[in-house]
């Protein structure tokens, strides 16, 4: 026996590593678990990537209200490979959220949450919300203008909670306003509290996988009966089970490796989001936007009717959590195959389309004034020969802010109707009425325009046909 082997043997004898770990690695799993079973482990590997890159970032980061922004500038622009490190942490977060979502959809579509795996689903729901919270608190830790204003937005949302809203907001910010304590609190949440919770729940989640076994691929007509399932599952494993390592695990290994590689490549070639202005709450020319995974919620706030908003902000998340947690109790037996559960598949599709649509419209944000729109000029409207009133109207269309919300040709915002051909549908008196009185979605300009200015604007608009 070589020396190395002797050492290994001694270690194994004194620690019992092999007898503890081998059964876990070799435990039998149902046959036929194919590529749809890799998303859970991909989420886990993304989390491990987050832990490792997060620790590395903590070596460089200053968790102080005063210096966090400077240290992020340092990480992004000066530290050796700091930009890539931030990039991996950013895309790793995205990966974790995506794969947690896909894993959840797979589990729902194949009804793997049914008996006896209810607690796997419940621990998974907690993990999903912890993951989203990590994503959001992480975005605040950039502590740039976007981070500061995003924290204000969260504090405002908490403020809408009846009775205790004010206290929740104050607890979040560590005071009545954004201040020195705010960032330290986000840091503690992002680096200690939520990672600890995630570790605990991942432990539980994986322990349950060993205790209850991986769900077998569903077959139409093979029903789950809580009375007989465990025995049936045990016999099935005895007859047809395959060893997890390597028969099933190679797919997890390959997929997760590809995911990690893709994240690193994205970090190298695209990199993390650029920092915005410094964290100064008195700089008001900010344009706060959340990272993509919070964008659907951002969009929802713009689109839902304002009079139900306070209720939705408060009750919406509670109902979602209650629904998700009660799902395995609403249906914990019977059919598992998606072929026999078309409504489940349809429901998942609806959620994906809903979130996808909100994400896309959120990225476009048509409800926001386009402050950076380039001024319309008489040249690009071919009005160089028009009279001075019309030309003044073109100028006023920009300076009075009309163009922030209305588009003419390629210029302007998307909030209000496109006015490129407005004269085709509105007469001059009609235009005047709209401008002077406004509407629910448009300010009444009556008090802000002189008669001459109104005439000039309308004269210009009447050339748009």
């Amino acid at each position, binding site marked *: 026996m070589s020396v190395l082997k002797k050492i290994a043997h001694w270690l194994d004898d004194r620690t019992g590593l092999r007898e503890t770990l081998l059964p876990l690695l070799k435990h039998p799993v149902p046959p036929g678990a194919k590529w749809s079973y890799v998303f859970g482990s991909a989420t886990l590997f993304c989390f491990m990537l987050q832990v490792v890159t997060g620790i590395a970032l903590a070596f460089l980061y200053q968790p102080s209200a005063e210096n966090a922004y400077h240290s992020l500038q340092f990480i992004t622009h000066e530290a050796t490979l700091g930009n890539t490190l931030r990039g991996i942490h950013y895309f790793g977060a995205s990966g974790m959220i995506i794969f947690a979502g896909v894993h959840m959809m797979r589990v729902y579509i194949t009804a793997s949450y049914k008996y006896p795996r209810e607690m796997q689903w419940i621990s998974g729901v907690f993990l999903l919300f912890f993951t989203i919270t990590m994503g959001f608190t992480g975005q605040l830790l950039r502590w740039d203008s976007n981070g*500061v204003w995003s924290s204000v937005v969260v504090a405002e949302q908490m403020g809408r909670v009846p009775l205790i809203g004010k206290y929740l907001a104050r607890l979040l910010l560590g005071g009545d306003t954004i201040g020195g304590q705010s960032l330290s609190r986000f840091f503690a949440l992002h680096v200690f509290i939520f990672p600890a919770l995630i570790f605990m729940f991942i432990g539980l989640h994986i322990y349950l996988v060993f205790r209850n076994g991986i769900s077998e691929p569903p077959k139409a007509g093979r029903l789950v009966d809580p009375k007989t399932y465990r025995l049936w599952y045990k016999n099935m494993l005895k007859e047809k089970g395959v060893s997890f390592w390597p028969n099933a695990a190679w797919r997890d290994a390959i997929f997760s490796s590809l995911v990690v590689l893709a994240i690193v490549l994205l970090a190298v070639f695209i990199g993390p989001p650029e920092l915005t202005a410094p*964290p100064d709450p008195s700089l008001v020319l900010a344009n706060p936007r959340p990272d993509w995974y919070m964008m659907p919620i951002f969009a929802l706030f713009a689109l839902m009717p304002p009079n139900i908003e306070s209720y939705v902000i408060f009750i919406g998340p509670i109902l979602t959590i209650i629904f998700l947690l009660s799902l395995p109790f609403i249906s914990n037996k019977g059919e598992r195959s998606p072929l026999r559960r078309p409504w489940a598949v349809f429901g998942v599709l609806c959620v994906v389309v809903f979130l996808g649509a909100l994400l896309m419209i959120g990225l476009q944000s048509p409800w926001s004034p386009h402050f950076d729109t380039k001024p319309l000029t008489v040249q690009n409207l071919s009005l160089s020969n028009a009279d001075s009133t019309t030309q003044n109207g073109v100028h006023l269309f920009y300076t009075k802010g009309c163009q922030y919300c209305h588009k003419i040709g390629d210029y302007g915002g998307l909030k209000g109707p496109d006015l490129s051909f407005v004269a085709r549908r509105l007469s001059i008196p009609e235009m005047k009425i709209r401008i002077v009185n406004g509407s629910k979605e448009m300010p009444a300009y009556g008090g802000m325009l002189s008669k001459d200015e109104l005439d000039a604007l309308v004269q210009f608009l009447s050339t748009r046909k």
Partner: protein
Amino acid sequence: MNEENNEEINRRDFLMKTGLWLGGIASLTALIPVVGGIFAPLLKTQKQTWRTVGLEKDFVIGTTSLVKFINADPEPYAGTTAKSAAWLRRETPNKFVAFSVNCTHLGCPVRWEVNADLFMCPCHGGVYYKDGSVAAGPPPKSLTQYMVRVYKGEVQIQTAPLPLTNLNATNS
């Protein structure tokens, strides 16, 4: 024999209970400062104070300008986060109005569009008139105002908490 056994059981029972109680008390005493540290912002009275934001003579009647000030009680390490801003409007020689920069919808910073005479929010499209009332978009109520006073020729603003919109405001 039986008596001895009973004594032994009583002793063990007593020690076990003592251990649990002691453990409970020890954890509680250690937890008090932990909870105190985390929930301190709820216990601390939040100060308010008057801050000078400029000289009375520098504000032109009929204009709105951004003024900056330091919060009431910033931590020494707060850096730039100690600052707040307000939109100060001089309506008449004797009347100043100061608006919070936070949109009443979800708190994003509204900007004053000087030519349009409107406050506009970049987040969800809220718009306000120059008097702070809602002109368009989702905001449920007018811009919140700070207290303003003129003191020895200086314009002063009273610092205030981040204005939160609650359920009542959205219903009114």
